[in-house]
């Protein structure tokens, strides 16, 4: 397996764990565990920016990472001959996720004035996925088309 695919898989798993935890917190109405107290995390998690069309962003983040995992699997195995399409889809979802994560981090810094470490960790993970995907998507497509 190419090194970048291994890296992407690790990052997706990290993203799933982070967004999974934040989704659990939302679902169980639990308190977010944060270094230096949960107040800032609670502020972010309970703000109107934590919802998109009424759906908690944590759930959407989990769905995005789950979608990336599915696309990664299809791309890796060229399942049903959809490898190229999956590689393109992976790039699109990762780019969307990274841009949206950047926006949410900006909201935390400049509007809410509260930083949720879990959200920042997820944003860093998503940006790393998008960067890796951007740098390797052409190579993946060429390999799949050549196969």
């Amino acid at each position, binding site marked *: 397996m190419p090194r970048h695919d291994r890296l992407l898989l690790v990052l997706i798993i990290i993203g799933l764990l982070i967004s999974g935890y934040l989704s659990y917190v939302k679902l169980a109405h639990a308190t977010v565990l944060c270094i230096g*107290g949960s*107040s*800032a995390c*609670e*502020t*972010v998690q*309970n*703000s*109107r*920016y934590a919802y*998109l069309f009424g759906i908690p962003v944590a759930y959407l983040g989990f769905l995005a990472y789950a979608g990336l995992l599915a696309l990664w699997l299809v791309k890796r195995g060229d399942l049903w001959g959809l490898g190229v399409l999956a590689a*393109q889809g992976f*790039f*699109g979802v990762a*780019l*969307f996720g990274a*841009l*949206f994560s950047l*926006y949410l981090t900006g909201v935390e810094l400049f*509007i*809410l*004035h*509260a930083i949720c470490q879990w959200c920042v960790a997820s944003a860093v993970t998503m940006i790393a996925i998008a960067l890796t995907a951007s740098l390797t*998507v*052409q190579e993946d*497509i*060429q390999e799949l*088309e050549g196969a």
Partner: protein
Amino acid sequence: MARRSARTVRKRQRRSHSTTTLVAIGAVAIIAVAIIIAISIQQSSASVAVPPTLDVPAAWVDRTTIGSPDARVTIQLWEDFLCPACAQWNQGLEPRLMEELVKTGLARVEFHHFPLSQHEPWATLAAQASECAADQGAFWPYHTMLFEASSSQGASGLNMDQLKRYAKDLGLDMGTFSECLESQRYRTQVQQSAAQAIALGLNATPSVLVNGELLDNPFDYAALVEKVKQAANQP
């Protein structure tokens, strides 16, 4: 030779086609995020709902105190408008407390400012605004609006413009309110209140005291009611 050349051309064409597709995907992603951001910004400028008027005699409301002057029990609330737990308390327990303990004349509630340093400068600004609203007899509905705003918008819901907006939505005299807020008339009073909280040994918000006795868990409503009833029955 010709076959190899044709293969190279096909390869280049495929690569060029793939790049165009990726650029198109990138553009779609950027446009989608831009649309979502625009919707999100539009939603964030929304105001908060004006709460219904508390159904108690006018004589029972004295600035940040509400309840019968004859009540034998005083419940002190020490809160910070930017504290998520306070907003939760305000939205979950306070309506019950008002309905079951205040309206029945059993207890009187005193609100005290305890702005936490990590929530500055918004917490103190909001506390001052609530005092300015109290000048016009509107502390209680205004404080409900502040908690709703902070829980949904964080600090951005407690900036100067938003604080004025809630006052306007409540129908307050805006000239008086703005002058009060901008001159920071209540800054010292709010700071003194925070110092008093620390002197009392309080270290968290919300802190709830029943006749001066601190509740271990402010979210245990049954314990609060029990404590109030005990205090009311004491000779």
